[in-house]
């Protein structure tokens, strides 16, 4: 229903806010469907980072949509036909929670039965993410890195004489400041916990990177433009983003040199399970660093533009 409201409104500010609420609801749904790691990510990314990015690009463009739109009839027809075809397809889909569904055959039983022993990590999501499907995750980390590069190429990070750390765009909000100040170390600590405890509980590099970046985004928003920048300069972040990808790739190359396949972590230590565990930790660290620096770089790029105009 929130989706419908988001489509109907022409005030883009409200649209973006509703989109954030929609993300949070999706996260709650994921939680209900036993996908704790995914719920975690969706809550941090969808409700946090995406909303901030969308708002800052609204600030750079226009808040109001131009109203006289094109005739929606043809599009409605196309959407209706596609929707009908999909509903027809859905009627044959396996029911929710059906243990005989194709998803629960093939590789899933192996992951569940042997994942904990083979990788030495109780959180199966982390085991599959970093070890069994390490190639995919490496590819995705590179995609994120590339997206960060693309944003930097398009927008660039501008240093501005008007940059005033300590003077916030939203004014001197005493309540916000005093709430945020004790909150920040807690967020950072939580980020570290999520990063290094990801192999036992819900969490991992992707979530931790986003949470860490969120803390700095919050700091920048409340304590004034550019104050995060004086803590973590963009130049560092460029190197950190590359370093994250490099750690991941480096682990792969090391296992190659040690005579095993690319990203086969059992080469990392004498005991294969111990090696796997170490590999997962290192790879997650690489992912966390890369995600953190790319998200923060993208935020810098957008906020730098805002000040220039």
């Amino acid at each position, binding site marked *: 229903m929130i989706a419908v409201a988001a489509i109907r409104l022409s005030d883009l500010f409200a649209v973006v806010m509703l989109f954030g609420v929609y993300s949070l609801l999706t996260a709650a749904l994921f939680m209900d469907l036993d996908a704790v790691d995914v719920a975690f990510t969706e809550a941090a990314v969808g409700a946090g980072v995406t909303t901030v990015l969308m708002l800052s690009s609204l600030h750079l463009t226009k808040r109001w949509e131009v109203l006289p739109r094109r005739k929606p009839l043809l599009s409605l027809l196309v959407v209706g036909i596609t929707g009908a075809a999909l509903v027809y397809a859905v009627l044959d889909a396996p029911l929710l929670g059906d243990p005989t569904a194709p998803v629960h055959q093939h590789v899933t039983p192996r992951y569940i039965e042997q*994942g904990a022993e083979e990788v030495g990590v109780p959180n199966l999501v982390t085991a599959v993410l970093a070890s069994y499907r390490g190639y995919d995750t490496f590819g995705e980390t590179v995609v994120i890195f590339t997206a960060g590069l693309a944003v930097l190429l398009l927008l660039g990070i501008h240093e501005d004489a008007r940059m005033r750390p300590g003077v916030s765009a939203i004014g001197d909000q005493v309540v916000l400041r005093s709430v945020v100040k004790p909150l920040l170390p807690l967020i950072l600590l939580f980020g570290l916990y999520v990063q290094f405890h990801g192999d036992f509980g819900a969490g991992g590099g992707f979530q931790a990177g986003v949470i860490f970046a969120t803390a700095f985004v919050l700091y920048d928003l409340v304590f004034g433009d550019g104050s995060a920048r004086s803590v973590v300069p963009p130049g560092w972040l460029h190197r950190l983003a590359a370093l994250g990808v490099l750690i991941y790739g480096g682990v792969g190359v090391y296992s190659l040199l040690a005579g095993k396949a690319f990203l086969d972590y059992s080469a990392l230590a004498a005991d294969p399970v111990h090696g796997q565990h170490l590999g997962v930790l290192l790879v997650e660290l690489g992912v966390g660093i890369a995600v953190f620096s790319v998200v923060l770089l993208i935020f810098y790029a*957008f906020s730098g533009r805002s000040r220039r105009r």
Partner: protein
Amino acid sequence: MNFLPGIFNYLVVVFLMMAGFYVVIAQGNLIKKLVGLGLFQASVFILYITMGNLAGGRAPIVVEGVTAYSSPLPHVLILTAIVVGVATTAVGLALAVRIHEAYDSVEEDQIHAEDIAADEALMNAETTGREDGRR
């Protein structure tokens, strides 16, 4: 079997997907299109997670004495897809911002109109230039 509750999630997915699809093709505002794309994307996420769910299963973190877990594989795919999604959305927003700087608008119609006007101006300049040369 309880057919309707079993299939309800998929119907929600289809509805959300079509809502996002409609926004992408029917509306001219580039930022709104990106929101539509986000809706579509989220519906795919829900589809995957729904498929991975197992009746009576637990979240896939190994605990003593539990044997039924939801499939971790869809979770992994979607987890990374969410983060990749925000990165690609950021690229889209950056493009929209640059387009706004060039055209002072993020409405597709206005951008097209401006493009056509610019093309016509260019062609007019060329033809008048040629006529001048003939004289």
